[in-house]
């Protein structure tokens, strides 16, 4: 009984996000003209995983009590890069994929190095580096265009055994290969510790700097994974400023919806993934109810505000008002 309670307390944020997502998705599919078919799930999945990857990236940085406003731009930059590199023979394509992911990692590492060793604030640093990354994207693709290895693209955006969306399988694989080991490694724990109480972590002799650097670098890599998938869906690269900004802001929304604390130290990338899927479904709901798409931002805002207020109830329990400001 007690065991179960502790597990539940730890996973509360993630479960809440899962619940919101399932609720939204049921409403969505039950009102969808086609109902719950493999195609509907595939489309939803393909749209959802893009934000899911970017939200995972955001989670890693937010856990260390930072914030990464460049994730959307890394996402766009790697999309443009992939539209040049992920082409040709199998070997060329493989090289391209590695180069794109490596670029993402490098972008994240630059963010991390500036924040950690330059001691600059993450918010300002990543606004600046984000602008630089977008600038490079614009140089790479002044006009939308390019191409991608279509065999690979179709394979990764299609269905496995005619039922399961491949993009969802890839997302699951990334969770298993990247998130699970990270969260259970010393570095991962140190990242949580850094976000929760940096002083206590330092006093406990935790590898703070390495953990933060790893978090930023992994974040860049995950954003690049998202960028790759964007290329697979669109077959082109486009340096779209609005899209980059939207992904950055939506990633923060998804993270909060997924139960990750913006103060750091609390939450999980899995929660953020459900947060991202739920956030995407909110947009689709309007479509099945035949609302004017103009309503979408307003509606998304209301739902987000509601979900975030659920997390703020703790403030009512504060006994010393000075704690509000800490």
């Amino acid at each position, binding site marked *: 009984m007690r065991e179960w309670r502790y597990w539940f307390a730890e996973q509360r944020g993630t479960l809440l996000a899962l619940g919101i997502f399932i609720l939204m998705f049921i409403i969505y599919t039950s009102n969808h003209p086609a109902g719950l078919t493999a195609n509907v799930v595939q489309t939803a999945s393909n749209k959802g995983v893009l934000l899911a990857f970017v939200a995972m990236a955001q989670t890693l940085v937010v856990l260390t009590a930072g914030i990464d406003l460049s994730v959307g731009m890394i996402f766009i930059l790697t999309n443009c890069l992939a539209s040049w590199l992920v082409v040709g023979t199998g070997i060329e394509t493989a090289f391209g994929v590695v180069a794109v992911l490596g670029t993402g990692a490098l972008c994240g590492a630059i963010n991390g190095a500036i924040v950690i060793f330059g001691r600059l604030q993450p918010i300002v640093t990543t606004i600046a580096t984000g602008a630089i990354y977008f600038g490079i994207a614009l140089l790479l693709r002044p006009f939308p265009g390019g191409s991608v290895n279509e065999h690979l693209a179709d394979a990764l955006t299609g269905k496995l055994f005619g039922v399961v969306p491949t993009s969802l399988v890839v997302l699951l694989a990334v969770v298993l290969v990247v998130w699970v080991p990270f969260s259970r*490694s010393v570095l991962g724990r140190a990242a949580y510790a850094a976000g929760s109480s940096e002083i206590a972590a330092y006093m406990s002799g935790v590898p703070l700097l390495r953990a933060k650097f790893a978090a930023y670098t992994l974040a860049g890599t995950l954003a690049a994974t998202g960028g790759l998938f964007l290329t697979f869906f669109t077959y082109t690269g486009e340096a779209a400023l609005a899209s980059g900004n939207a992904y950055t802001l939506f990633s923060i929304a998804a993270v909060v919806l997924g139960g990750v604390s913006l103060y750091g130290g609390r939450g999980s990338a899995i929660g953020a993934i459900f947060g991202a899927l739920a956030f995407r479904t909110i947009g689709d709901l309007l479509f099945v109810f035949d609302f004017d798409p103009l309503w979408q931002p307003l509606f998304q805002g209301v739902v987000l505000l509601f979900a975030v207020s659920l997390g703020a109830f703790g403030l009512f329990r504060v006994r010393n008002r000075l704690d509000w400001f800490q």
Partner: protein
Amino acid sequence: MNEAAPLLRMEGISKRYGGVRALEHADLSVSPGRIHAILGENGAGKSTLIKIMAGVVAPDEGRMTMDGHEVSFGSPAAANEAGIVCVFQELSLIPDLSVADNIVISDPPLRFGMIDRRAQRRIAEEALARAGASDIHPQALVKDLPLSRRQMVEIAKALARKPRILILDEATSALTATDVSRIFDVLKRLRSEGLALLYISHRMNEIEELADECTVFRNGSNVATYAAGSKTDNEVVEMMIGREYSHVFPPKSDRPKSDAAPVLECRKLSWTDRLNDISLSVRAGEVVGLGGLDGQGQRELLLAFFGVLRGLTGEILVNGKPASISSPAAAKQDEIGMALIPEDRKTEGLMLPMTVRENLSFTALDRVTKAGVIDRTAEQALIDDMVKLLAIKTAGLDIPVGALSGGNQQKVVIAKWLMRQPRIILLNDPTRGIDVGTKQEMYQLLRKLADAGAAIVFYSTDYDELIGCCDRVLVLYDGAIKRELVGDEITERALIASALNIEGEGAAMAGEARP
């Protein structure tokens, strides 16, 4: 007097923070299989010594040897590696992680490069059992635990690191009596296993029960080391005092005040476990000191008056009428007329990047505002008065207040509250880290304000100040008023004895006049 060769020896350690010297040529040697108690009053240098030993701060001079080899620790991790583990007074636990996560944080068990949760759980359970705290669930989040349980986790965490030297810095201050006796058994067992233990506590009875030897610190140096039990409490207090007098205080006003009606009163005030059934009253023209060791609830008491704490029980009366003060904004209104000079001027007192002018007029803006617009002339007049009254030395009113010296910054904090002509002035250790000259000016000012009819509550960690400035001193211990000292009863001996909660002897000494 040590039978065994010392494990750690510190020689000639000095440390300064800015102009303040925290340690001056301090020596200490620690032997295996012994419990060594360290005593000293607030600011005697105990904490700095511990921090140097644990690799948190680096000494300016002096040398440390361990097993005869010279060592220096650049970080807490390095000290841990050498086997020195410290249970800090300010907790070093990470609130959002579980108890088990915290216990293994510096060296988690690995399996295929990942943290082995099962092994972690086992280590945590063992460590908790060793610390006598098996009632704590290893999966519980630290932030959900009450303070006393957290302290047990902190001790378990230290034990899990297999220390050779274990330092406990006020590690029992939040524990219940049962926990303390369990911890004592644990510590005695560790001693028999050959660990060296350093025990810092202000509870004399604990030291008596536990320690093999004691070292007394005063003014940043070790003044005596003796075998536990070879000195009386009286002699120990004597060793802890022995400071020369360096401050000049204005004469206390001699007119009787007992007939004046109290301006500020509280009855049976309690808040969580930090304030315990406190009743007091302060009259106009009176300076009432709050004494006791640091962290016994003095700060919380002032915050309670000032409307910062929620969930207070008991009653606060202003001018004889029950007052419900729900925030600092309410406390400063004219019908209450309260001002709080906070402890940390840099965070709670001033907006450092803003100008002297802006900082000075913040609290009184409503008085110089007409139809929502600040009347610059009226503001200027008020500011001029204050700068003159307090002799604030500044290159101009429009420079950032952060550019002033510490003493002048503190004057700005006081001035901004005096602009409202408060009738109740609460001061939280206002002279910490400021120069002697400014201190003296402040003592004069306090007396002047009291003579003009203000009721003053003055918390200070400096006993000289309490003796020199206060008409009465209330000594707090564990969130409750332990003793009230009036007039000539306020002596350093009486203050220290009651701060350490030594009954009997302390009370007997209280009547003696200060030499």
